[in-house]
């Protein structure tokens, strides 16, 4: 019997009432009396020397209030990288300054070198066009291989385009090389993990406000983590004391990673607000989103898999070039390293893993974490090379995976890439996938497709990822410059309803529905009496926000801990009210009772007593009922899954249609299965988008050719099948109180190789000897591959 409330209930999302009725309050919806508008002057060349910027004509135009250039921020700090990565030789990565506005050089198309503040957006746009910038175009550095060989640099001061040359695990390098040299069979695959534009539906927007009376700043901004943004602005960029800066991220229309990061526009509107004493708003248009939001993926990889005669995996060796773009975005150095290399053992008992990653500066937009962040890259490389290996040795691809899976009795399992997996059962997921996908009837479906002149293929994938980011102690050792705990404050109001202030930020995840299900279950009260407060640094405890599928596993755990404190205190109050000992108080269905008696008080009565403490034991218990907890996880969580996909390929045109897509995931315990299913759906859409249609293309001059929806393909509803989603085979996480893992990124991690494997299977079934096609597998690419086979 499904529950209708609390943990496990498919409660409808309460936030959808406002979103679906047009009553969401997004940053751009905020209108302040006397606000003015900022518009940026952005580079039209990928690499250029700023010789002069003449703003005099622009400054004289109607409505113009101020024009700021890089010169105005020359003394202001840079926007830092959040992780320090050391190269194999022990030297630290290169960290060129990322200024608020470009100064001296522009380094990618869209790089802002000036901003006009005017009474209206229209006036500011007009004035931007009147800025006379003399920018000498320099040869663009676009291709990563060329960048590493070039004698001119994105950042002249570091004298190289290589940010770092990282090895993981460096001590395993020689042994891995040896294993590959001596192996019975080695499968090699070179592949590209295509660059993606996040394409949140809501473009970025920032509003700066300054009160000269109190010297306080308020920044409304499209952020996934307002406290992190405040910390970066305060501690690194502008030096505004944290207690003088409030950052508010109201409703945010999708982030997918791109709104984790602090961007220069946020600092600029604050600086302009102070300079002018006016509220300054900037809203990106879609072109700016394409040009300046941090992009995702963009790896070029060679992977080798060594096997013995029986198909046992002996070693994986990976060489990757990872594009970081023109500047280091906040998590850009962690994504291709510790969020990628540490996953390169996959679900397998392989004894040796070695990963080499060279991060490369290019004259392109910064690249950073995007839904999955490093783990899709790892899974793609592994699951493609395993599929290729299965074909080479003539073994069924599922059998080859099963042969090498970590088995249920091996947990906790120390992977060859340095992580400790806490729980899982990959064979059980594969069994369930084969069942719910009706794999047994695949051959019959293939015949039906053949009768229509179409090639049907079956592709499979097994993934593991590390999320619930992250244990601070561990990531500190690995180079993180921040802690990755989260925090929650549970405030019981006098009338018995609750406000729960959380550090996580909901921009599609459904926290406003899910967190009350947890608290309601623990207290035995109606979740509808509990509201979540998030996104405002003046209201919430210091949390690290939402990314890395961390909200429930980390912030949800903090919510549990704070609620436990509430229960403990409430029991004391109840014991006093019932004239009993706290140890004898039981809480059930929202009622505190004395064990073995019929004496009881309700949760509401206890709440009222806490705030109207008449006849209250003030020497033992403080008034009020409000508790805060910080939670720092002991380990990552390790969701895993078995996915399969069936495609039909039109051999005449190369057009691929995904006919069936099945995702069986182990998310541990599930709080709201409907929300989880929705998260998987979204991830699958983005993963299939990456596999089939999405691609970010710069030409050799660094011009972004795919800079609008006329040329950048987003997956649409009719590109996608109805999904089979199953999360019934969860193995609870062993180290967080809810036993939850994390579901936000799984679909985007698991689906790309599944789709590619299916297309390769389809082509092979049609007698085409195609072993690999790079994503996106557009009709043109598939047709070309078939014709070159």
């Amino acid at each position, binding site marked *: 019997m499904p529950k209708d409330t609390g943990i496990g209930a498919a409660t409808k999302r309460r936030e959808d009432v406002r979103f679906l009725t047009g009553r969401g309050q997004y940053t751009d919806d905020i209108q302040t009396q006397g606000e003015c508008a900022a518009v940026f002057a952005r580079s039209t060349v990928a690499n250029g020397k700023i010789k002069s910027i003449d703003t005099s004509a622009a400054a004289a135009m109607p409505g113009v209030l101020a024009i700021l250039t890089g010169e105005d921020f020359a003394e202001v700090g840079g926007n830092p990288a959040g992780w320090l990565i050391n190269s194999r030789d022990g030297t630290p990565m290169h960290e060129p300054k990322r200024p608020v506005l470009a100064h001296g050089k522009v380094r990618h198309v869209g790089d802002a070198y000036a901003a006009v503040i005017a009474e209206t957006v229209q006036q500011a746009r007009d004035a931007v066009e009147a800025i006379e910038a003399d920018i000498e175009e320099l040869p663009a550095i676009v291709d990563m291989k060329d960048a590493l060989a070039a004698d001119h640099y994105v950042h002249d001061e570091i004298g190289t385009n290589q940010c770092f040359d990282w090895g993981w695990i460096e001590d395993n390098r020689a042994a891995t090389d040896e294993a590959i040299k001596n192996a019975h069979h080695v499968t090699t695959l070179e592949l590209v993990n295509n660059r993606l534009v996040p394409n949140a539906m809501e473009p970025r927007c920032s509003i700066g406000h300054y009160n000269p009376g109190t010297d306080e700043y308020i920044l409304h901004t499209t952020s996934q983590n307002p406290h992190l943004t405040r910390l970066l602005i305060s501690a690194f960029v502008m030096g505004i004391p944290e207690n003088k800066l409030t950052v508010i991220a109201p409703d945010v229309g999708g982030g997918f990673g791109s709104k984790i990061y602090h961007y220069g526009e946020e600092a600029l509107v604050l600086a302009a607000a102070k300079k002018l004493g006016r509220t300054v708003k900037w809203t990106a248009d879609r072109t700016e989103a394409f040009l300046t939001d941090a992009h995702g993926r963009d790896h070029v990889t060679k992977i080798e898999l060594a096997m013995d005669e029986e198909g046992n995996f002996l070693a994986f060796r990976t060489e990757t070039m990872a594009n970081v773009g023109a500047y280091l975005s906040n998590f850009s150095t962690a994504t291709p390293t510790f969020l990628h290399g540490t996953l390169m053992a996959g679900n397998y008992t392989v004894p040796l893993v070695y990963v080499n990653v060279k991060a490369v500066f290019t004259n392109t937009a910064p690249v950073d974490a995007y839904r999955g962040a490093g783990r899709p890259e790892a899974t793609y490389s592994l699951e493609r090379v395993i599929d290729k290996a299965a074909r080479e040795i003539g073994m069924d691809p599922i059998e080859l995976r099963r042969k090498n899976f970590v088995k249920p009795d091996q947990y906790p399992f120390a992977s060859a890439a340095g992580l400790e997996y806490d729980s899982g059962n990959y064979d059980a997921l594969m069994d369930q996938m084969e069942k719910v996908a009706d794999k047994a009837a695949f051959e019959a479906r293939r015949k039906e497709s053949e009768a229509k002149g179409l090639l049907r293929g079956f592709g499979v994938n097994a993934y593991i990822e590390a999320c619930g980011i992250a244990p601070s102690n561990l990531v500190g050792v690995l180079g993180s410059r921040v802690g990755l705990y989260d925090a929650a404050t549970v405030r019981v109001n006098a009338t018995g309803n609750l406000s729960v202030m959380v550090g996580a930020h909901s921009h599609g995840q459904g926290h406003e529905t899910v967190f009350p299900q947890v608290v309601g279950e623990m207290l035995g009260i109606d979740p509808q009496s509990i509201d979540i407060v998030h996104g405002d640094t003046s209201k919430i405890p210091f949390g690290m926000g939402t990314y890395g599928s961390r909200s429930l596993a980390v912030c949800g755990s903090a919510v549990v801990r704070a609620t436990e404190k509430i229960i403990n205190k409430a029991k004391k109050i109840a014991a006093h009210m019932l004239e009993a000992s706290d140890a004898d108080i039981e809480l059930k269905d929202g009622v505190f009772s004395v064990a073995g008696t019929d004496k009881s008080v309700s949760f509401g009565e206890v709440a009222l007593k806490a705030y109207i403490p008449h006849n209250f034991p003030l020497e033992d218990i403080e008034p009020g009922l409000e508790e805060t907890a910080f939670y720092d996880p002991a380990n990552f969580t390790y969701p895993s899954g078995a996915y399969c996909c069936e495609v039909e390929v039109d051999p005449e045109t190369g057009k691929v249609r995904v006919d069936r897509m099945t995702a069986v995931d182990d998310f541990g315990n599930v709080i709201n299965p409907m929300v989880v299913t929705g998260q998987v759906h979204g991830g699958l859409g983005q993963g299939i988008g990456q596999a089939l249609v999405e*691609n970010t293309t710069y030409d050799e001059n660094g011009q972004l*050719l*795919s800079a609008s*929806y006329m*040329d*950048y393909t987003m997956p649409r509803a009719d590109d996608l099948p109805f999904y089979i989603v199953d999360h019934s085979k969860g193995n609870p996480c062993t180290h967080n109180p809810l036993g939850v893992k994390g579901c936000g990124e799984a679909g985007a991690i698991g689906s790309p190789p599944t789709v590619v494997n299916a297309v390769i299977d389809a082509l092979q079934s049609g007698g085409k000897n195609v072993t690999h096609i790079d994503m996106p597998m*557009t009709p*043109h690419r598939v*047709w070309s591959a078939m014709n070159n086979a």
Partner: protein
Amino acid sequence: MYAFDIERPASVADAVAALGAEDAQALGGGQTLIPTLKQRLAAPSRLVSLSGVTEMQGVASEAGNIRIGGATTHATVASQVGGTYPALADLAANIGDPAVRNRGTIGGSLANNDPAACYPAAALGSGATIITNKRQIAADDYFQGMFTTALEEGEIITAVSFPVPEKANYQKFVQPASRFALVGVFVAKYSDGVRVAVTGASNEGVHRWSAAEDALSAIFAADAIAGLSVAADDLISDLHGSADYRAHLVKVMTGRAVKAAS
């Protein structure tokens, strides 16, 4: 977008007069022009909206022809032409998305002559007549290359007249991002022969494939073009497909159109 004035004439005569002003620009459904203005890629001082000109609205059948007013939306064509000319209705029903179809007009599409638009293939493939405020122009004379037509400054497409074929079909292989035609082929069979018009493929814009027309006029069957090949020389090569791929698709889509023609 830059500031502009807008006029909303109610008659063709008033529209023509309004377009006489310096820098004036006709506005059909705005599905190309408005995005262009938003990008500040055009700066007309005055827009003359044709959507209120009632004599340019609607669909009428007349002696084996179907006449569609220049300001008629794709959605109207999709819903009203199906009984008479199903291939044309089907084409209109698959242009863009519902918002585009309820704003965009046939006159706007033909005047713009985007090399990947659908309507030029229908007009050329049907041997339609483009009717303006000044004259009647045969489709074969009207299309003069990418974004180029026989229209003179200030000339307005008031209607388009399509001879109704015995059977016809349009096959569009979409460019995945824009969903314009990567290659679109319109095949129409008339008593005096077959016309084949290709959009999306060529640097010269919409054009006829005369070898296929000859073959299909002799035998109207997909096999009739089996021995033909399409030269890739003047075809478009871009992010979404090479010239060779487009050449291949022209033949595939032509065969499919012949098979599907009704």
